[in-house]
């Protein structure tokens, strides 16, 4: 990196609607953060610095879901400026908890319940959606929030021009590495089999079931998981709801298919 900043990749980190947990996690990388700032040219990172520039980018990391008209415009602009866009965090990848109202009418009804008939002057609200509802996304880095190890390895690979190598298997695999007892066998509803790995099976390590906060694993057989849980005696609505808590639109197709199933 001695050849000067021209060689460095230009990177922007952006926050849409969410809890700011992914940006905070990047900040919590304390020691590595300094190396990150040395290795790349961080053009924009609102949480960490004040001299932010909105110019051409090599890579844009985007956290949060799209929940206002202004965010949508901002996102489209980021896409235009960036060669590569990475969705970071469950909200950005799947819409997160706020995308649980899949039905537009449902969302409108609930919006009214919270804000009444007040007209919002500053920013037109939109039903929360993951960023790929509006732009092409190159890579998805899930997590609620994203994990430090997976983030740093992804960041490194992108810096070197390689695609990230993410776990393509469910939490169960990590859980076995950690030699935990299977909670499903104990009759506890655990979403490990359908949830993306990367967290290190942290909840099960604490004797608690996986809540599915990293979103659905790419090749998960959701229907089979559903039937398995039904066989274990769990309630139809409860399973359905639980599977959708964090996954937003990631579960939309599956939940649509379920409509024909008997209760």
């Amino acid at each position: 990196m001695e050849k000067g900043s021209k060689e460095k990749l230009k990177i922007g980190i952006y926050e849409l609607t969410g809890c700011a947990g992914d940006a905070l996690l990047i900040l919590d990388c304390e020691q590595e953060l300094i190396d990150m700032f040395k290795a790349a040219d961080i053009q924009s990172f609102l949480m960490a610095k004040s001299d932010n520039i909105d110019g051409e980018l090599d890579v844009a990391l985007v956290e949060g879901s799209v929940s206002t008209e202004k965010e949508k415009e901002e996102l489209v602009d980021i896409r235009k400026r960036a060669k590569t866009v990475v969705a970071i965090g469950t909200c950005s990848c799947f819409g997160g908890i706020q995308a649980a109202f899949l039905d537009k009418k449902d969302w409108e009804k609930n919006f009214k319940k919270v804000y009444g008939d007040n007209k919002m002057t500053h920013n037109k609200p939109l039903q929360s959606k993951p960023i790929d509802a509006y732009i092409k996304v190159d890579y998805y880095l899930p997590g609620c929030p994203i994990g430090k190890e997976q983030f740093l390895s992804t960041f490194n690979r992108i810096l070197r021009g390689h695609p990230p190598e993410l776990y393509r298997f469910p939490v169960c695999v990590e859980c076995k590495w950690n030699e935990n007892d299977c909670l499903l066998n104990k009759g506890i509803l655990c979403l490990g089999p359908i949830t993306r790995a990367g967290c290190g099976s942290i909840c099960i390590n604490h004797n608690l079931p996986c809540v599915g906060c990293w979103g659905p694993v790419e090749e998960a057989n959701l229907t089979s998981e559903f039937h398995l849980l039904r066989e274990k005696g769990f309630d139809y609505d409860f399973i359905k709801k639980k599977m959708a808590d964090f996954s937003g639109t990631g579960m939309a197709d599956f939940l649509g298919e379920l409509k024909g199933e008997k209760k």
Partner: protein
Amino acid sequence: MKKISVEHLARVEGNGGISATIDGNVVTDVKFSIYEGPRLVERLTVGKTPEEDVNIVPRICAICSLSHKYAVLRAMENALSVKVSPKVALFRELMHLGEMIESHSLHLYYLALPDYVGFPNAIAMAAKFDLEVKIALEMKEFGNHIMKTASGRYIHGENPVIGGFGKFPSIEELIWIKSRAVHFMPFVLKTVSLFCELDYPDCPEDDTVFACCNPDQNKYGFAGDEIILSTGETINKEDYKSLTNEFVVSHSYAKHSRYKREPYSVGALARVNNLGERLKGEAGKMYKKYFNPRWKRNPLFNNAAQALEILYAFERIPKIIDKMVKFPDPPIVKYTKKEGKGTGIVEAPRGLLIHSYEISGSLVSYTDIVTPTAQNAEDIERYCYIAAQKLLDKGEENKIRDRMDLVVRAYDPCISCSAHMAEVKKAPAEDWKAKLAEIKEKASPMFVGVGNRNRSDDGAGVELALELKKLGVCDVYLESELEKHKILWEYKALRPLILFDAVDFKEAPGKVTLLPLNYVMDKTRLSHKILPFISMQMRHKHLKNAYMLGIQPESIEEGTKISRPVRQAILKVLKEIKN
């Protein structure tokens, strides 16, 4: 007319900003906005199990995630009649202290301090305060470590659950935390001196009401079952709505709160102001040494209060751990209740946090969450207004932007901003016309003419009202008729109220200014006896829907002649109202 705004206050649930609109010599509007999109968390949670809610609601904010977790657990356990063992209560307190240390030290050293020692950011500041910045980072990491130990990971850990914890730390781990806490004490004491001795500017200063949790047994602390106010009143947690009165404002997706129609403040400063006398040990000594009456009037002292609380936390940790190691790890308490109602209140680092739920048929049927930043929003706007107007009076307009930045940051709203994105904009001339149109669009206003017709231009307000009456405009009153019509008694703020008056804003004669009435209240510029009367009548009513349309007089000498520029102004206003 100018607009001074600090947009993109970074670091909250996304982003927000503050802006002040300046019309000549007068600040006519201050707005604190959260641009963050709506998430409808209070509705998302309905229909889920209590356990699912405990997973979901802390996702409101990563920065205060454990305070949210603590509050939702207390609420759910109240609703479901779950009693946790002493070890669980102690471990939760420890976890919460970890968040306090992490959040306060990040805010003080990385966000607040650079402003006071003249550096643009913490990294630049490190050149002069190398050691402080490094140890402060270690202190923050220590807070993070406690949070990770208690919750399972840095952010959104799921280890704390209804009825207890999934897993407790080993005794070795606890002893290590205790020894680390003791090890930090010299630096913690230095932190208190540093932040209590900073030179806080005396603008803005004004009285407000402070609110915080009232911990049991007359102790200092960050949780309780009652809210205590600086007025001495206490409010049971179930009655929290009598304090918060949340309402929606059109410029923000965060709701605002008012107590008895007045803004109030929450946070470290509220806690130290209300409970400081209860501090013991080194924290008690430091409180006695540094506390002074300015702490009750100046929000910038929130920084000093946070430093005192770091000291409190470091003194408290060894005591908690000494007790914790005596107990075996308790199992998670099971519950059978399927119906219930419960509220949980805790102190997030930035103030009172309230979670309230109703459970029917084992599912959540109602959720209400009131966050500290929502409660502080009104006071943030008010103090920024006071600061802006005072600086403007002193001819220091160039300082307004940075001062507002300082005020907002002192409140450490989840948007304690590291960004300095203030900008100064010239707004169009005669901006009052657009504002008047905006008010009229909402509902047809009532008008009251105020003034003394025997003092030349001072009669402008009455003159204007009389002319309007002649034109047949409805709901126009004179100051002298108020008693008769009792309009202010019946005034319910369903419709806007506009007072006409000659106001000395030190502008060119005839200049018209339209501003919210509460921005006029504490001004001596107004010459009439009517104002204290009006302010008294309206104190507990909806001040935000009342406005003052002021015309700059040329002269208020004895006589009945109205000057030319003021007469022209009256005609202009008549024309606008007629339209």
